[in-house]
């Protein structure tokens, strides 16, 4: 991957350029700014409530590790959301890729990164197959990915049952343990070392974000994906190969899901069939909170990171405050609904204001 251009450091894409860029904040950017403020407030208040929240080893490190994984999951969903589709099989695609990696390490004794590449290829392939079925049949992506989820759920369990006794591939290739434990403190450029609070896995997320952000903001294919999400008929009549773009978006989704599966497996230390079973909800939370449209045509990579961060900060903070695991979901769900409702409230208010000011 080539280095991203440096004129703008963010990799967010808002394909709806602003009509008046200087005078008013566009809703997408306002949303991201709002997220940032909320995250900051939460971090400060959790920190003041419990100083353990700032503990680099015990809190920040695992927090960032979770954010890293779930942000990639969010990007996997974002890839299909850009064309107005959904991928309900995102977790199971992660499981499939992880399974292939585990199989590769155990049976073929591949090195860490060779196995990763193989797993990503399988993820891309299953995504492409899903995309192909959708574009060939014209059936709603929801149905197709749901069915694919069933298929993979069965398939993955069957393969684990076939090859293992404990339903897990436990052979660890060289470097896997280090990847789990090491932070940026272990990455040094001469005398300057990174923070011990940031896990090395975060680098995978950064690479994924840069790649996806660059794709959507700077390349032809990315723009064409957004246009397919915007109006597929017009896209076809403008010479965009819509079938190939649909397949491509799903293949990208599969690849990113595979990467997330790998990261989770590295964190957990083994490759199991349950990898990815918790991915579905966060995969939507991140992008949707961050301003990616379910209907397609607009995506925000930075927003996905912020959305994911928000949910994980809440999760981590509440856990620290002694809120039981069982209650976490209640708060998370409530916050999701609240956060999305504020957008609606804001539109209603601004519409009303516009009406009265005239």
């Amino acid at each position, binding site marked *: 991957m080539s280095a991203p251009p440096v004129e703008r450091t963010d990799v967010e894409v808002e394909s709806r350029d602003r009509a008046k860029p200087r005078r008013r904040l566009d809703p997408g950017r306002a949303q991201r700014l709002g997220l940032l403020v909320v995250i900051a407030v939460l971090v400060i208040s959790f920190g003041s409530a419990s100083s353990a929240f700032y503990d680099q080893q015990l809190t920040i490190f695992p927090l960032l590790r979770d954010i890293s994984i779930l942000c990639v999951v969010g990007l996997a969903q974002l890839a299909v959301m850009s064309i*107005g589709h*959904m991928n309900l099989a995102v977790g199971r695609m992660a499981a499939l890729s992880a399974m292939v990696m585990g199989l590769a390490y155990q049976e073929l004794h591949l090195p860490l990164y060779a196995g990763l590449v193989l797993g990503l290829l399988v993820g891309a392939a299953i995504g492409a197959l899903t995309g192909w*079925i959708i574009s*060939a*049949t*014209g*059936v*709603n*992506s*929801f*149905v*197709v990915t*749901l*069915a*694919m*989820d*069933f*298929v*993979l*759920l*069965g*398939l*993955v*369990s*069957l393969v684990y*049952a076939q090859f293992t006794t404990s339903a897990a591939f436990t052979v660890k290739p060289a470097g896997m343990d280090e990847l789990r434990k090491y932070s940026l403190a272990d990455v040094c450029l001469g005398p300057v070392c990174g923070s011990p609070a940031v896990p090395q896995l975060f680098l995978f997320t950064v690479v994924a974000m840069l790649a996806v952000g660059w794709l959507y903001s700077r390349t032809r294919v990315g723009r064409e994906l957004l246009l397919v999400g915007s109006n*597929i008929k017009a896209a076809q009549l403008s010479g965009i190969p819509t079938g190939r773009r649909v397949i491509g978006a799903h293949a990208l989704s599969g690849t990113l899901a595979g990467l997330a599966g790998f990261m989770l497996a590295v964190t957990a230390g083994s490759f199991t069939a349950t990898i990815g079973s918790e991915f579905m*909800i966060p995969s*939507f*939370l991140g992008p*949707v909170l961050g301003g990616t449209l*379910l*209907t397609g045509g607009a995506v925000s990579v930075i927003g996905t990171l912020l959305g994911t961060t928000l949910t994980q900060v809440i999760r981590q903070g509440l856990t620290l405050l002694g809120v*039981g*695991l*069982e*209650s*976490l*979901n*209640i*708060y*998370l*769900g*409530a916050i*999701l*609904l609240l956060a*999305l*409702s504020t957008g*609606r409230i804001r539109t209603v208010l601004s519409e009303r204001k516009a009406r009265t000011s005239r």
Partner: protein
Amino acid sequence: MTTLGRFLPPGAGRIRRFARSTEMTLAAVGVIGFVALAADSHGSLLQGNAVRGILTYLSVPILIGLAQLVVLAAGQMNLSVGALGGFLSVFTAALMADHGVPAPLAIGIALLAGTVIGAGNGILVVVTRINGFIVTLGTMTILLGLQYRVAGTRTIDAGSAALQRFGSMSLLNVPTIFMVALVVAGGLAFFLRRVAAGRRLLASGGNPLAAELSGISNARSLVLAHTLSGLIIAVAAVVAVASAPGVNKSIGGDWLLPSFAAPIIGGAALAGGAVSVLGAVFAAFIVRLVDLARAQYSLDPSWVNFTVGAVVLGTVVIGRIQEVRQTRSRQAKPDTASQSTNSTVRSPA
């Protein structure tokens, strides 16, 4: 077509339409599959308690399929089917076990709670105007948390002998809880076919703009659909409590996917407006058959998911091929040319 219809007795068209319908195909598949399985089991599948077993464990799949179907009819989705069912199950059981609430009252409270939560989903969708998918994703998360909070790590035994008896009772080898499911299915079918409110609900799902222009309140339809969904889930939860020895925090966790599978295999369009209660019931039966076959040949349980997924994929692909063929044959006769339906179905926004 129009002229031909006039020479046939009224109803003949309907019969012909039914013969070609998805329901008929599903019924045929179900019967053939069952006969094959029964023959291969040397008749043991036809014995009283085997039939009872099959039907008992068919009730919940039918009910959750119907709960999803009524929302699909209005062009929405309900991701909280499993979470709400799970929560209501442990809630009902806990009412009886922990607080000594008598079974009829507990059931009443459960049905009421399901209805209210369903209505809450609907009202949230209408008021916030957020995609129903996301709203129910949110309530799903909340309900999962509530379920864990109520159940904790224990398995709750409702401890009501009356309820247990009701759960295992059967008439001529047909379990009462299966009859409950059939009654709900019949009621829902009647509601969607004959009741004005049901027709309005379907109209909202089929073409919201047209419905609005015809003086139909889409908001009311959406709330109604989600409310009914909540009520049906509550019935499913009660059935689950009655038929299982105990419920825990994992109940309902595997309800979401089957809830979509039944109506979709049964011929529901995700775009709304077109659903088939009968089809969903047959589809649930077919899924149950797959499970039976799995048990009969002692295969890994994962085969069930794999097969169901493959069947859904197969259904959509075949359905699409048929549609394409129909459009082609229609194109060949320009007289009857009609607008081909939009092939890229967007998820309902």
